[in-house]
């Protein structure tokens, strides 16, 4: 296909793909009566941005939702890395009895989707009085067998000479993990971080189960609550809320696009 045709086809498809964003933004700027009158119009006749966004900011604790999302994703990521990096290093570079069993457990863990242990985890958290806490949001996701697998693969290609040299300098294995292995694994760590944050920022299932009310609601829950409780037919305000909640991750993506896409293409394989 000629290059010009390709670009035209891509541009047409691209416009189609962007339609939800374009109309979401457009609707967030229009007054309700105008939404009913002229559904196809993009630019509002009279700007209602202040009304719509004002309503959202007044009625929805946007800051709280974003903060909760940040605490949850940050907490999950820190623990995942803390658990997975040493384990990945040990599985890749150290010989010890039971290593094959542990690797078998990792492979088994890769087969089990997070929805399967969800019910018993919910029961345990409920029995312990932990529902509606940050711990309930964070703890069940602290272990990522996928991360262990990823770091093991990455550390396997780390030159043995590098590790031997560090041992010669008198470094213990734990120090080698954080001061020799990790600095060499930043690409894998970045890629995994992106993968993890996107997955948990977007997750609705688990937050919906373990939290009630607004106090610990994540951005996904915030949108859900606003839609069912407050917005009704006020699509202008609803679209304003959606725009605000979608913006952080989209902006982060646009700023770090190259890293982002590489991260997904190297680690996204588990979906």
């Amino acid at each position: 296909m000629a290059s010009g045709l390709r670009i035209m086809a891509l541009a047409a498809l691209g416009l189609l793909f962007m339609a939800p964003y374009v109309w979401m933004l457009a609707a967030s700027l229009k007054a309700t009566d105008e939404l009913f009158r002229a559904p196809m119009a993009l630019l509002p006749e009279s700007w209602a941005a202040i009304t719509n966004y004002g309503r959202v900011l007044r009625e929805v604790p946007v800051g709280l939702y974003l903060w909760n999302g940040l605490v949850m994703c940050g907490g999950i990521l820190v623990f995942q890395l803390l658990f997975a990096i040493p384990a990945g290093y040990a599985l890749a570079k150290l010989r010890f009895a039971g290593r094959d069993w542990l690797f078998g457990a990792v492979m088994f863990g890769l087969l089990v989707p997070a929805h399967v242990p969800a019910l018993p985890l919910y029961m345990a958290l409920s029995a312990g009085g932990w529902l509606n806490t940050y711990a309930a949001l964070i703890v069940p996701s602290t272990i990522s067998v996928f991360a262990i697998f990823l770091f093991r693969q990455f550390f396997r290609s780390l030159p043995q000479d590098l590790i031997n040299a560090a041992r010669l300098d008198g470094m213990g294995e734990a120090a080698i993990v954080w001061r020799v292995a990790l600095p060499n694994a930043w690409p894998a760590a970045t890629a995994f971080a992106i993968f993890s944050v996107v997955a948990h920022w977007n997750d609705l299932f688990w937050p919906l189960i373990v939290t009630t009310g607004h106090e610990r609601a994540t951005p996904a829950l915030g949108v859900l609550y606003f839609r069912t409780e407050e917005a009704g037919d006020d699509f202008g305000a609803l679209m304003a809320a959606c725009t605000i909640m979608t913006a952080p991750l989209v902006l982060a993506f646009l700023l770090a696009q190259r890293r982002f896409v590489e991260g997904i293409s190297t680690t996204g394989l588990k979906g």
Partner: protein
Amino acid sequence: MREPGRRGEALAGWLLTTPAALAFLLLVLAPTLAAVALAFSDYELGQWPPAWIGLENFRELWTDRGFRTSFVNTLVYVGLVAPLSVLGGLGLALLIEGAARGRTLFRAVFFLPVVSLTVAMAAAWQYLLHPTIGPVNAALRMIGVTGPAWLSSSDTVLLSLAAIGIWEGVGFNMVLFMAGLTAIPRELREAALVDGARGGWDRFRLVTWPLLGPTTLFVVTISLIRAVRVFDTVAVLTRGGPNKASEVLLYTMYTEGFTFLRLGYSAAITLVFLAIVLVLMLLQTRVLDRRVHYG
């Protein structure tokens, strides 16, 4: 050289893996086994002790018309979303790869749905597909067609959800295919050109497609598994309605467990879900793997 002795190495190995192993036991293995046990019990939240009822839950699932609908709906959804998002992703990757300009821009455009908050985008789709004020039906009216009530008619609700699922999944698959395409050596395509594969289609059929085999296999499996896990759009937009027309496995599991508090029954649905995922993975490693030509 002061290498640690075998015992020192073993000790370090154990120390470094212990935190992860404990977390795995506590948060993955034990609850998964508990879920399996739960599926054979009549446990309801607040009622203790549960009784062991063997296959009763599964027998009930088998005769439960709601569950059957949910199962069939999930299959229909997967059957639409997985193939179309794989083909769409492949098509886009090939189009972008061969474009002279704007690769980064187009890649970003099609990838955007992957990083957008699903719940928010579902609400945006609800507005887009609204029967009276939605732009989609307004556009249809302009060409003289009366559009359906996309999300509130049982004829179109699953199709609409599938369309949203495809919109979300295509960009993800495109990125994976683009990674696969860059791994194909350029010389191979040039060699094919010299050997007389002149047309773009011949080049695709003889070189690109066989070498994309492993990537395609991954993308197909991931797309299937992602599609089986559909939950967010259903929970936000339809809650399984109207008339159970958009009831899907994970949403049924959620309502049985957390609305009706029938945890045993819900766990049985989880096992059905797990069985589907395992079969899909087995399919990848056992059946499809043999047909793939690894370059």
